[in-house]
């Protein structure tokens, strides 16, 4: 690629609340600039994992370089950086934004501003991006573009009167958006002659090339043979290839220089060495300072993952290893459960991240998994003065050794129409929320601010929120810090044996309720045995709830007709096969589904 005039480059992203049409707009832009014909395009080019397409969310940052012939007669290079769309990946979002100079804010013409719209706009403004709005879905009967424009001006305080009115789905107004990119997104700054300073905003592992580092060159230049250093991790390497992003492919080029977005490979074996947010510099001519904003990403949510078939443990280990190559935020270490055997304690950025990993393990690696209830990291302060970070409830020290415990708390913002304020406040109250404030966005909508314990929102808060607001509430949060809390370990005893994989940490005030629901749920999950099975919930050895699975009274075959033994045998085999999928704890066989059922305890 010949040297590109910096003034003809536009690095930008699209930000939006989920479902407001971010990926569809990205597709239209790519289509319009002729990179792919619409027939070649699978819907939503940038979401290239099956999972992403199915769930309609972007999990990994995707980037594409396109050439636009503008009305001023010049050719512009657009680097469109698609950011992940979920609060679990907030840090990745912030690094992707840092790679851009401007952002298109997509707002749904009917729904207006939502919680994620705000969160994303503030994040973009924090990174000094020039944000300009477009109003999408204007062809919907319920579209109110004028109202939404005013809302954008009133709430966010950015100019919106000349915002393009578009329908990404039907290709209306796309040209206008492209022109706005040329005029409203500033050209990149930076000098190619300064020492190399490049921001890593993502990386993927390729089995032939090693790690492919996605970066934005802020200063300097990089080409094949440059010796580079990652400033935070300290890893060094020699660049093998640089290039830019075609749609779904990597296109090598001579050099990347200040202002450009592209990739580099350097036979790096592990994504751990190329942490998102780190700065790449020239080993022989380093820059003085790394770029600001790097931080180490920590797991927020933990759970145990076990192969349903104990013999598949090595397969699970290999699969996790492979996923980890591509996902530096996935952590795991081996653990052993009395009930479930050998498995791993895995750490995730959030529940969505957990679900994604779980689904990928099941689909791409064909593993059948048993997952224990997800929990957060608790801080346990021992009377000895020592503090431990607890990720597995089974490792909770004896109560006599515990001075106090802390749990993570988040600041949450919930956008809701006023008619649902009551039910949503009640939900937050039930989840031990601390009310902070209510701000009215307009007469019919409000922004509720709460502080909530993370462990109250990780499983089903989002679903509960949706169901209590008929789908209208939206939600965003960030970690605030740790607070002292009255926490206890709830143990489940089945036929008087404690089942380690079913233990979890819960606030003392909710223990009774949760214990009771757990017992009810397990009663339905555990099949009848030859003997009666008590199911008990206990806190500190004290039983707080009990249910009973009655003994099996009869289990007989129907009449065997005309010597059809094959059919009888099939029935017996089915029965035996069912047993195989059970986990033996003491004398009791527990189906795998029981371990997962604890995840779904919300009131109907």
């Amino acid at each position, binding site marked *: 690629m010949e040297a590109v005039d910096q003034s003809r480059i536009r690095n930008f992203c699209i930000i939006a609340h989920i479902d407001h049409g971010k990926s569809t707009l990205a597709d239209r832009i790519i289509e319009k600039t002729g990179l792919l014909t619409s027939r070649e395009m699978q819907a939503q080019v940038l979401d290239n994992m099956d999972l992403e397409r199915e769930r309609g969310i972007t999990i990994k940052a995707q980037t594409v370089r396109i050439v636009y012939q503008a009305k001023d007669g010049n050719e512009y290079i657009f680097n469109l950086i698609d950011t992940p769309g979920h609060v679990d990946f907030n840090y990745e979002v912030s690094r992707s934004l840092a790679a851009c100079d401007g952002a298109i804010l997509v707002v749904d013409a009917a729904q207006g501003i939502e919680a994620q719209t705000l969160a994303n706009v503030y994040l973009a403004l924090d990174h000094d991006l020039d944000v300009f709005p477009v109003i999408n879905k204007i062809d919907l009967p319920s579209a109110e573009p004028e109202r939404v424009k005013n809302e954008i001006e009133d709430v966010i305080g950015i100019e919106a009167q000349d915002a393009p009115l578009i329908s990404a789905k039907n290709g209306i107004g796309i040209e206008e958006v492209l022109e706005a990119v040329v005029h409203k997104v500033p050209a990149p700054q930076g000098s190619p002659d300064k020492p190399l300073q490049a921001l890593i905003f993502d990386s993927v592992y390729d089995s032939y090339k090693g790690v492919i580092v996605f970066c934005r060159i802020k200063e300097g230049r990089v080409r094949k043979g440059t010796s580079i250093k990652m400033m935070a991790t300290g890893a060094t390497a020699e660049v093998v290839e640089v290039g830019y992003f075609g749609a779904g492919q990597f296109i090598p080029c001579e050099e990347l220089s200040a202002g450009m977005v592209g990739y580099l490979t350097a036979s790096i074996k592990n994504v751990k060495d190329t942490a998102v947010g780190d700065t790449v510099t020239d080993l022989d001519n380093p820059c003085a300072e790394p770029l600001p904003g790097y931080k180490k990403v920590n797991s927020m949510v933990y759970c145990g993952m076990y192969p349903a078939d104990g013999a598949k443990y090595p397969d699970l280990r290999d699969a996790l290893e492979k996923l980890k190559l591509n996902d530096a935020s996935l952590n795991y270490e081996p653990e052993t459960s009395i009930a479930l055997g050998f498995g791993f304690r895995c750490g995730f950025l959030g529940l969505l991240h957990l679900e994604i990993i779980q689904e990928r393990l099941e689909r791409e690696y064909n593993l059948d998994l048993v997952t224990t209830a997800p929990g957060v990291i608790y801080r346990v302060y021992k009377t000895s003065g020592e503090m431990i970070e607890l990720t597995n409830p089974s490792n909770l020290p004896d109560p006599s050794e515990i001075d106090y415990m802390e749990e993570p708390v988040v600041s949450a913002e919930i956008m809701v129409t006023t008619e649902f304020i009551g039910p949503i406040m009640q939900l937050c109250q039930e989840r031990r929320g601390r009310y902070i404030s209510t701000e009215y966005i307009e007469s019919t909508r409000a922004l509720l601010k709460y502080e909530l314990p993370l462990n109250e929102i990780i499983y089903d808060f989002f679903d509960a929120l949706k169901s209590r607001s008929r789908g209208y509430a939206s939600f965003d949060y960030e970690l605030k810090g740790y607070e002292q809390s009255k926490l206890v370990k709830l143990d489940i005893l089945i036929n008087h044996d404690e089942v380690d994989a079913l233990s979890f940490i819960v606030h003392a005030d909710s223990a009774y309720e949760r214990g009771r629901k757990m017992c009810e749920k397990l009663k339905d999950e555990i099949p009848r045995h030859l003997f009666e099975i008590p199911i008990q919930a206990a806190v500190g050895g004290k039983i707080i709830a009990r249910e009973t699975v009655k003994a099996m009274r009869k289990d007989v*075959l129907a009449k*065997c007709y005309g*010597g059809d033994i094959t059919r009888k045998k099939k029935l017996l085999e089915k029965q035996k096969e069912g047993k195989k999928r059970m986990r033996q704890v003491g004398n009791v066989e527990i189906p795998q589904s029981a371990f997962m059922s604890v995840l779904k305890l919300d009131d109907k």
Partner: protein
Amino acid sequence: MRDLSIYIHIPFCARKCLYCDFLSFSASAAEIKSYVNLLLREIKEQSVFYRDHRVISVFLGGGTPSILPAEAVGRILETVREYYRMTEGAEITVECNPGTVTAEKFIDYITCGINRLSIGLQSTQDEELERIGRIHDYKTFLETYRMARAAGFQNINIDLMAALPGQSIASYRETLERVTALSPEHISAYSLILEEGTPLYDRKEQYCFPTEEEDREMYQMTREYLEEQGYHRYEISNYAREGYACRHNQVYWQRGDYAGFGLGASSMVCDVRWRIPETMEEYRAYVENMQESPEAGRDCMDLASWQKNGGKQGVKERQVLGAKEQMEEYMFLGLRMMCGVNCRGFHDKFGQDMEAVYGAVLDKMMSQGLLLREDGYIKLSDRGIDVSNYVMAGFLLD
């Protein structure tokens, strides 16, 4: 020379009962006639494979075999006699349902050598019969029974069912009393099992079924009452007066050779199991294809080679039972007999001790009180009978 039992399936019923998931349906006289012709041909063609067998029992089951004209039943049995070596005193049973027979039909049955009847009564309570969709009432049954005795039948089974919708302990008790008062030689009494896909299953919410506790009480009562009345329980659900245990049924549990003819019929000969196709179309093709069967067939070994070659497109689910499957069957079928399974018999057949193969499961089940060991036999305890499925599944090998 090996013993052979013959099962002949007659898939026709006047109307299907609401609980029934067996292979049966209603048909026109012409359809029935054409089916009988196929059947005769199948019996005839297959006989070449059984020249080393002698027939100890024939069982016409269904469906409702008594729906056939007596003349058709006669032709079937004539064909069996003509092409197979029938032993003296072979047990020849026909199943019949009240309302499908006449006095003349019974006389014709006797004439063609039938010596045992199995009558489907199920209950003596008319409202219970109606709820499960039987075509007859108790009174019709009584007439049928009297006609059978009058025709000269001296070996009659009556089928009963427990755990019917709306049935009570008391009403079931009355059924037992009424039936024993008639002094049949044999009684079989099964619990109703609701099978998915049957109309009764679909409307199960409408009815009040006896609880499992009541079902087991009915079972215990059956055994106690029938034993008082001189019936011996020789199999989980079958009771007979001395000398009247059903020979044909025991062949299934003891793994004797049996050949099934007709739509969907199951066979096991020389440790090979197979099934005849279940649709009329396939069955017709299967029988017509038999023309090509080898003339020189002499025994069941030739049968095997015929099934593998010429007949393979017809036979379904053909399975050659290896030592593992044979051992499993020896156990889970044998345990249905009240005398249990014989440990020495196991050793003689398989050259291994039962303990060596099943030691762990035997110990476990005995410690749970489900199995008993008596005089070299392993048998189900009363509790073991209640959960016989669980026990039998334990004998499947990995």
